[in-house]
């Protein structure tokens, strides 16, 4: 084990492992990485994403290591990023989001990941997941439920281009659509109600399905995404875990997809395959018609100029991080898997509150209410609870009632206020700790 990497200072101090499998451009990208990090390591051709990450952990031979995918390029400024000591716990994987070079989305797809070795080795995901679990991602939350998780870091230093060949573009779109659809199926009602837009996952799916005509293989990526959606719809018994099997994906491409499109005037500089662009456009339009007929999908055609305008407007924000920030704040407040750090919790709640998360206001109020922070005071707690109540927090009414009840000299007016708060709490489904069913967050 490399003792020097126990708690490094910057990303430049952390071993970095480049992971490639079958990408014909991988050598080029690896060479680019080595210009920034001559010490970069590589794992190539390891079958299975779980196995690949464990191989990376072994090659890095350190308490912490970075992984980067073969379709990802890094800004030189990446390695000057200081590591947040407060978050360097073996229960967190730290992610720096990536901007998709085709559709402009900023997301975890292709992101730069900082792994604690113990977490990577404890992971059982993708091909290594228990048979009963559909695993299309690292599933960090299943290692120690409520404790292990990914933490999104500020800044975007990473660009990911999964569309350098038609096959890889198709595969990327297909896999992502299947992953997002599976995620949608597991979204809780509370997640949907609390989201700031009608459906963030629907918006992301829409981007994968409609944006990209301005890039050489963007149309293939859109086709893959639409096919992924269609597969879910047309074959409900189809096992989405098949996307983890790259051999199967290649057979699907070679024997089903490519023959449907046929050869034509367009040619891939890496693989040499030729395809009929007009036929490809017909296919994606046909899929759009079918999807629109059978689902709520809305998939208009964006030509290259419109597609480019949308991407270069930069209006596709990252997913709302407020729920995650609030949840990590709770982890630090309660000391779940990490030492209790009220200052960290307060900072995270304040950030989530700025973005408009109701429970963040309630959590900040609780810090004052319970006297957990310096200069805690009841007036501030009451004010914050009131804001949380106004924004619809289900927990704030009962917490405020409890706080007011603790005052033995309360007046008749205040007793009435407490009763109203208790009624509101019951209406919102949370009567207080031990007093009723707690709604899911």
């Amino acid at each position, binding site marked *: 084990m490399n003792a020097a990497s126990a708690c490094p200072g910057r990303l430049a101090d952390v071993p970095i492992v480049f992971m490639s499998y079958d990408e014909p451009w991988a050598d080029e990208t690896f060479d680019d990485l080595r210009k920034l990090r001559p010490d970069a390591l590589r794992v190539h051709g390891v079958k299975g994403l779980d196995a690949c990450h464990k191989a990376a952990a072994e090659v890095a031979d350190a308490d912490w290591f970075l992984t980067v995918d073969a379709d990802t390029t890094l800004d030189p400024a990446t390695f000057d990023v200081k590591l947040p000591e407060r978050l360097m716990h073996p229960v967190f994987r730290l992610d*720096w*989001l990536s*901007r998709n070079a085709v559709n402009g989305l*900023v997301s975890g797809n292709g992101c730069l990941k900082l792994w604690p070795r113990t977490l990577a080795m404890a992971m059982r995901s993708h091909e290594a997941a228990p048979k009963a679990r559909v695993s299309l991602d690292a599933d960090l939350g299943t290692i120690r439920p409520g404790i292990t998780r990914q933490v*999104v870091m*500020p*800044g*975007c*230093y990473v660009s990911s281009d999964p569309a350098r060949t038609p096959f890889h573009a198709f595969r990327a779109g297909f896999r992502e659509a299947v992953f997002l659809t599976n995620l949608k199926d597991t979204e809780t009602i509370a997640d949907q109600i609390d989201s*700031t*837009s*009608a459906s963030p996952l629907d*918006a992301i799916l*829409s*981007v994968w399905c*409609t944006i990209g005509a301005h890039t050489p293989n963007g149309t293939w990526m859109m086709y893959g995404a639409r096919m992924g959606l269609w597969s879910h719809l047309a074959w409900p018994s189809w096992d989405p875990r098949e996307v983890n099997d790259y051999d199967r994906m290649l057979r699907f491409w070679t024997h089903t997809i490519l023959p449907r499109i046929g050869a034509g005037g367009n040619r891939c500089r890496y693989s040499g395959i030729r395809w009929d662009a007009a036929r490809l456009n017909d296919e994606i339009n046909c899929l759009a018609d079918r999807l629109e007929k059978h689902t709520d999908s*809305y*998939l*208009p*055609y*964006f030509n290259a*100029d*419109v597609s*480019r*305008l*949308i991407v*270069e*407007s*930069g*209006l*596709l*924000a*990252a997913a*709302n*991080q*407020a729920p995650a*920030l609030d949840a990590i704040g709770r982890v630090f407040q309660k000391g779940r898997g990490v030492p209790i750090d009220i200052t960290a919790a307060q*900072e995270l709640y*304040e*950030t*989530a509150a*700025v*973005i*408009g998360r109701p429970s963040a206001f309630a959590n900040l109020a609780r810090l004052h209410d319970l006297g957990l922070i310096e200069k805690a005071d009841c007036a501030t707690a009451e*004010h914050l609870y*009131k*804001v949380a109540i*106004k*924004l619809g927090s289900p927990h704030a009414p009962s917490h405020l009632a409890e706080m007011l009840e603790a005052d033995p000299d309360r007046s008749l007016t205040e007793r009435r206020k407490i009763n109203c708060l208790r009624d509101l709490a019951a209406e919102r489904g949370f009567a207080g700790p031990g007093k009723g069913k707690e709604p899911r967050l």
Partner: protein
Amino acid sequence: MLCEYPVLRLLASGQEKQVDAGGFVDALPLPADAPDVWAKVAKESGEENIVVIDSHVTPSPALEAYCPEPILSASSLCLLFPARSVVTGLVVSRGVRLVPSNRFDGIETLFSPSLTLPHVAGSFAANYTPQRAFRTAYLLTADRPVPTNPLARHRFALSASLGSEALNGPWWMLGALYALLDQNPVEVAWAKCAPLLADPSGLSRRSRELARKVRLATDLPVQAMDQRQSRAVKALIPNIAPADYWQGFVEGCADLGADGKTLAVRYALAGAAVWPGEISA
């Protein structure tokens, strides 16, 4: 909270019938063209700050819960919470304002200098007639300098490309496109378009033609999106202020002393969580 301040709702002529519920239901409606009335009400309130809802803005109920930081309330700045256009889906420079009472003495400087907060106030809908839609889009576009930054230029182009599926949206697009092409007063531009009232099928043709002219004359990549395209793009736009609003606010706060710098850091962190890589403290 903002709902605890006196609230004035400005109504443009013809707007009376359009008032929607939204937030601040107890706001006092006042004519938008009577600043002396606003000043009288502000003075009589005895409060240090007044909330003013711009014409055609429907505030979201959540905005009522916003609590201005003491450093902002004490700054003597007019604080603007921008609204989102129902036509384009983009944030505009109209919305809800928190105005220091002493500003009502001089109408010329009532809303300036100001600081725009990166919190979307609600919706802005000045499209209830073709002429209103045209005029509003024209004036909003003409008011803004054409950006030089590539990202901002593309967003600017988008603001003249969206809206064909909205009520009087094609008229809105025409207004924005004309503002990009000529320097004439809005009445002159409207006179050129008004004959299309009798020829609705000519609207989309004119938009496409103007968009092409704008691209040639200004190099702005405007596209006259059709209804399906416009509707789909608007569904992708998050209900969050764009990155430049967050960055502008962070920079504005940093000028307000030590407490302002603390607030700037908090907003920079929050902005970075929504717009990674685009916000710096």
